[in-house]
């Protein structure tokens, strides 16, 4: 298993580890619930260095990124971030990712850890104009600072600017306590926060700068356990759980990131055809009405009819009830919100609710 540059830091904090996408990552340090709530009320510090980063630049870069993306990168200017999907020729999702525009011929793509090799091959396969595509994942560390106190924690270390002026889905290249950092106002928690990209050799330094301030602010280091419950409450899909190569964006409620007008991209034809034919699945949020926990893969019914399955599910530490996403038949009208989920052979009542949960 691969380890991030912060592995020893996690070990010294007595983290429990888990395997995720081929990486040995901290699952939790104290308790998933405590870590989760500290992000909602104060602040949390995450090591996300398992995420993949590609540096893409040079001739043909705009055409390459544009043809791979369902979202329109023409909307980007320098210092802006775009959430997009890569789809295959049949419209299935290769990955969901962030695209950072560093200059008009220079982008950073941030991809899911488990998909680094697949995505790199995908980008290279379609690179026929000699664009420079560099997988810089190994040399790049990613530390996230998330929660209502992130601005006040970060500001003292960034003397040249007020980080509250970095808008959502914008980034700057600056220094944190002298460490060169790409400071990005993005996150996967539903809270205000930053994702901080540094050279792998600076990871421990940056962690050590932020960690005492986080603790001082009643915050905590946060593992992948709470990252999962935070993103679930925020209604954010996870590649590999809620979508895969055989799922199209419309089926998971990501149709708004497909921009077809006046542009070409891989999968466009298939996606338009699928839409014309009718989308057969839809993703909904649900809340259990009793104490049973619905987990990924559990079957979903309505009035005795099997209508789909749970893709992500967990207890919600903030709402103190059990929630999840389900992929169900598009024939189901959401006015009838009552569904049943099979938990260990017994049906338990749930209701469809709007996303996000919080």
């Amino acid at each position, binding site marked *: 298993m691969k380890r991030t540059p912060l592995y020893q830091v996690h070990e010294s904090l007595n983290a429990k580890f888990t395997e995720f996408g081929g990486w040995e990552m901290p699952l939790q340090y104290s308790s*998933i*619930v405590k870590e989760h709530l500290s992000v909602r009320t104060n602040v949390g510090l995450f090591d996300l260095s398992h995420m993949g980063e590609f540096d893409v630049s040079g001739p043909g870069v705009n055409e390459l990124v544009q043809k791979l993306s369902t979202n329109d990168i023409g909307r980007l200017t320098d210092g802006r971030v775009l959430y997009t999907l890569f789809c295959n020729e049949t419209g299935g999702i290769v990955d969901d990712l962030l695209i950072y525009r560093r200059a008009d011929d220079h982008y950073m793509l941030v991809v899911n850890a488990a998909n680094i090799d697949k995505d790199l091959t995908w980008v290279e396969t379609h690179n026929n104009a000699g664009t420079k595509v560099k997988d810089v994942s190994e040399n790049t560390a990613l530390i996230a600072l998330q929660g209502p106190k992130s601005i006040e924690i970060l500001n003292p270390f960034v003397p040249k600017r007020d980080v509250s002026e970095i808008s959502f889905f914008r980034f700057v290249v600056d220094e944190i306590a002298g460490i060169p950092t790409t400071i990005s106002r993005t996150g996967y928690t539903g809270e205000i926060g930053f994702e901080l990209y540094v050279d792998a050799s600076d990871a421990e330094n940056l962690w050590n700068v932020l960690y005492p301030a986080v603790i001082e602010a009643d915050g905590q280091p946060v593992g992948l*356990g709470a990252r999962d419950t935070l993103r679930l409450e925020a209604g954010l899909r996870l590649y590999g759980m809620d979508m895969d190569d055989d799922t199209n964006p419309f089926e998971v409620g990501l149709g708004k990131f497909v921009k077809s007008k006046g542009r070409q991209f891989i999968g466009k034809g298939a996606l338009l055809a699928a839409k014309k034919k009718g989308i057969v699945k839809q993703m909904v949020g649900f809340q259990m009405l009793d*104490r*049973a*926990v619905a*987990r990924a893969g559990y079957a979903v019914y309505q009035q005795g009819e099997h209508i789909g399955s749970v893709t992500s599910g*967990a207890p919600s530490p903030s709402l103190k009830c059990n929630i999840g996403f389900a992929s169900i038949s598009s024939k189901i009208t959401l006015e009838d919100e009552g569904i049943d989920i099979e938990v260990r052979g017994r049906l338990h009542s749930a209701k469809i609710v709007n996303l996000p949960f919080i």
Partner: protein
Amino acid sequence: MIPQNLKYMESHEWARQEGDIVTIGISDYAQSEIQDIVYVELPEVGTELTQKTEFGVIESVKAAFDLYAPVSGEVIEVNESLLDAPEQVNESPYDDGWFLKIKMTDPSELDALLDADGYQAHIEAEHA
């Protein structure tokens, strides 16, 4: 600390014998591994359990964990307070966090369980 007066399963359930009644729960080690327990699904009074077979489930924030019966017998009491306060299993695994009282059908089944030292060795082996 592993209480000396209990018997243990390799799957981390404990059993406390008082005559032919056995109280069962999970060990402190198990609760600290599972963490954040949000729900405990237990059988009803009158259910017949068979040693080493599943009788219930613990749900934590992260995952579900099956529970295995340390002895065979009839469930005569269920810790109903866990329904509203499952965190007792995390906070007090050997006392307030007990699950069931079972009327044993075969007290000799207890001999097949680990004693405290054996359980300690088992945890160390599992953790190594």
